[in-house]
């Protein structure tokens, strides 16, 4: 297979195993490209991409922009803070105005779940979801799986635990879909209040004790507590959360095996993960960031081939 089965990347849920393999194989080539003295290819020199970020982002936005520039695309950026949205313009009007400037592809992050899907139904451009509310963040899950594949050779059969705020996390949901499609075993671990009610329907294991979860897994993906999405208090205090669900060097060393630590960022050092663990040899956090550019290049390249 040399083409994706989808026309937009709205969520990992819509991807087949072959799609994920194609994205990873293509990313392998781009990873070599970005490690050369000249880190650029001319493939997308006649493509214009708009990055529409209706929510704050550092890493994802920079990673997408770099991926687009490495492919020689023209890039325009939009952040809701400085936009006419504040003057009452609707999402469709904003996007249609941008599209009349002849834009071929849109990367959108939005606080509402389903925003990317909505856009794909109403505008004539390829859409990449860069995070929609607490729904999906497909490129993050793809780069997480890619990093696991790079470390272990394959994702199939690996035991992965996602620790922390599962309820508000789009990274968790996309990761569950991606890992299951590739044949990994998935567990979620966190306080009961931060695990969604429907979790059993997704076919994942649930564990509330961090030590048990770490003893079980090959890889632990540590999530940030998303205070900005919490309207009520889900646990007594950050200190208590950290004591129960924070990963420390002592805890890691006391396990009967060496596990790999991941984190999608931004890290709250000292809350879900200590500095010692984040900077240790067992952590592949910075590999994830590097792989993010290669995986996003692959996704953009493969979708652009369908324009």
């Amino acid at each position, binding site marked *: 297979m*040399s083409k994706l089965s989808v026309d937009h990347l709205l969520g990992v849920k819509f991807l087949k195993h072959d799609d994920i393999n194609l994205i990873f194989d293509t990313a392998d*080539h781009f990873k*070599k*490209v970005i490690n050369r003295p*000249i880190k650029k*290819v001319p*493939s997308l020199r006649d493509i214009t991409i708009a990055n529409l970020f209706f929510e704050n982002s550092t890493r994802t936005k920079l990673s997408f922009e770099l991926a687009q520039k490495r492919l020689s695309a023209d890039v325009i950026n939009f952040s809701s803070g400085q936009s006419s949205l504040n003057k009452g313009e609707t999402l469709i009007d904003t996007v249609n105005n941008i599209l009349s400037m002849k834009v071929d592809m849109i990367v959108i992050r939005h606080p509402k779940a389903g925003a990317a899907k909505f856009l794909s139904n109403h505008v004539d451009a390829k859409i990449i979801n860069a995070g929609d509310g607490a729904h999906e963040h497909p490129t993050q899950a793809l780069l997480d799986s890619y990093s696991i594949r790079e470390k272990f050779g394959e994702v199939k059969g690996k035991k992965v635990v996602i620790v922390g705020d599962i309820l508000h996390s789009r990274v968790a949901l996309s990761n569950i879909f991606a890992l299951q499609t590739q044949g990994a075993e998935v567990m979620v671990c966190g306080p009961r209040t931060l695990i969604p009610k429907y979790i059993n329907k997704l076919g994942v294991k649930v564990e509330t004790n961090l030590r048990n979860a770490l003893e079980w897994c090959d890889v632990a993906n540590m999530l940030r507590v998303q205070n900005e999405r919490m309207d009520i208090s889900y646990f007594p205090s950050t200190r208590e959360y950290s004591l129960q669900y924070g990963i420390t060097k002592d805890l890691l060393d006391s396990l009967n095996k060496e596990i790999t630590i991941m984190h999608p960022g931004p890290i709250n050092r000292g809350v879900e993960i200590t500095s010692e663990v984040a900077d240790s040899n067992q952590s592949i956090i910075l590999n994830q960031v590097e792989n993010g550019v290669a995986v996003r290049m692959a996704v953009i390249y493969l979708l652009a081939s369908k324009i």
Partner: protein
Amino acid sequence: MSQKVLLNNKEVNIILHRLACQLIEKHTDFSNTVLIGLQPRGVFLAQRLKLILTKDYNLSNIKLGLLDITFYRDDFRRSDKLHKANSTEIDFLIEDKHVVFIDDVLYTGRSIRSALTAIQSFGRPAGIELLTLIDRRFSRHLPIQPNYRGRQVDAINHEKVLVNWKETKGEDAVYLVNN
């Protein structure tokens, strides 16, 4: 579909040795020369030439790299087919080196144009030459000609030149296929 033999096993072998000798004539000990096989089909020819230079002419230290041009093609989004990328393996610097591109068939010249762009990512070579086993005359879209050619062929557009290698098809032979 009918096919005609352009080169048989023996002829391919003679041509490979002649091409190797022509390379030696120009590049002597290859101390400042690198061979670059173009992915995917130029690779077998390049590896074969390296083998002849090393085994039959006792030249050591022949540097051979493989270059993939997929992301440098000028027909991205212009054809229905999306070309699958192959690996690029160039683990040496080409700055100030004499580069010899090696491909099996020179047709429109567009692959070579892409390769000329792609190679720039690895430095500024002192010069670039082109070696092809088959040169399809009268088919060029761009002003590109080989420095070393195995055989010149006059083929019309719907005809296809098929190169078989022992490594993949069990024989060294070149056919002209009429669809």
